[in-house]
């Protein structure tokens, strides 16, 4: 009988846990969408110059 109880507990966790995160996700996603929209409205910048190469620590390896 214990197997049935655990199957229901884990099944419930699988169903409920993503649903619990949805409001949290919605707020974060909305913030991102608004940020992207603001960036799109702003004038574009050059992304090809070496100076904008991201994540570099100057060693050439990062």
């Amino acid at each position, binding site marked *: 009988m214990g*197997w049935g109880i655990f*199957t229901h507990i*884990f*099944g419930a*966790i*699988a*169903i409920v846990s993503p649903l619990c*995160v949805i409001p949290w996700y919605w707020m974060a996603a909305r913030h991102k969408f608004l940020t992207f929209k603001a960036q799109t409205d702003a004038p574009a*910048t050059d992304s090809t110059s070496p100076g904008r190469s991201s*994540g570099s620590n100057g060693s050439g390896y990062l």
Partner: protein
Amino acid sequence: MNGASEVIIKLHWVDWLVIAAYIGGMLWLGFYFSRRERTFDDYFMAGRNVPAPLLVGTLVSTFYGLDTLLGTSEIGYFEGVSAFFAYALPYAIFYIILALLSPRFKARWPHSSTMQDIVFAQYGKVAGVASSIAAFVYSTNSMEMMGIGFLVHLITGWPLWIGVLIGAVIALIYTYFGGLWADIMTDFVQFCVMMVTVGVGVILAWHALGGYDGLVQGLKAFTGEQDISYYFSPGAGYLTTWTLISYSLTALVVLAEPAFFQRIFASATPRDIKVALAAGVPMWLSFDWAATFLGLLGAAAVGLGMIPDMVPNEVPYAVLGQFLPVGIVGLGFAGALAAAMSTADSYFLIAGGVIGHDLQKVWKPHATDRQKERWTKNGILISAALSISLALVFDKIMGVWVFQATVMICTSLIPVYFGTFSRRPPKKISGTLATVLGLGLSVLWYAATLIFGYNDEELGTQIIKVGNVELWQEYGILMIVPLVFVVYVVSNLFGRKTHEQQVSGEVRA
């Protein structure tokens, strides 16, 4: 299988509508983000500003794909609950360890994008390249492609290769254009769909079979034996002690998982990644339990004649198709598709990053953002082509996974952790020897077992005989990791300091 044309599970038009809506939504997200990325950091690292809620979805759904659903349920189908206790549970320990360590990685390497960056920075080019090759091998998506092929074959009757191509093209489109943001946003939807459907599926199937009593009756009919207690014994089945240890050790891959490291470095703050990894633990465990019992319930359903006898990989689909109601079946298949695509897209991107970010540092150290992005996209295409080819060659899911995990653990685990957490800067030679040896030996071991070993169909593995000792393919990890550890420690003790280390030591003194 490739030439089969029989539709095994018929879907209602409502189910097709759900699947179409899911695919359309994924493609829309990809195109939305493709128009809003400007730098390589935007494309590959989502601007290094991903908050915890978004990280939860992408972490859970990326690491758990169809390989987990099908692999775990395959063991559950034959061996019962040991699939959860012996194979899945050790992973939970390493999720917790990584959750605790992840803020330190983020703080120690704030400008890194990949785990290979650590190896390049601490040990130089040779070690970095070896680690990058391991990450590329690990990120090859053959299992997910194979799983999507099975899925499409089951609901359409089309040959496997058509399903493989369809899955690859859809995941490719939004990943190629949208980068990590598209990956993360689609992963969350996929995470919800896959979790909810396996959760609903396992509970409905449990009741449809008549609970525990029905399960036992079904398993007795399936095995033709009266004693089926080993199905409910955590350490039972064909797994020997050493195989159990080997399978459990593959859980070490959690600590050297390229997709986890990409998300550690892409997180907004160290706290975000710690919270996200910790929150993922109960979700991963619940998915494992559901996958295990979908296998057990599938075996019982075959025994009771509720679903036809089929290859184990198809059983979870058959169970979901049999016991979920109309509309929810469509969601169930979208969930299975989601499990595969959320993993496939992430690893396509990781593999692309190996070429566009990691290896490009060797041949073009001062590449611009546009050049990095272009080569990352080329890498995505190369990885997809390789994944599709391998999916049509391999036919055993666990075998592929154990090989990839072995290569990754043996090559990168020890250099990355010593390189990050040791008090003194490590010697370059130690990382170089450890990565090259780890990569070389793990590939040689698998090649040797394939060439000189024999295939045991009952046990489902390659075995090589040395004297009277039978060594399974899976034992490689047990032999190579300790050897790499010894080589690393000894060479770090006796190796020569680099010029930078000597200068740094003098300054400290």
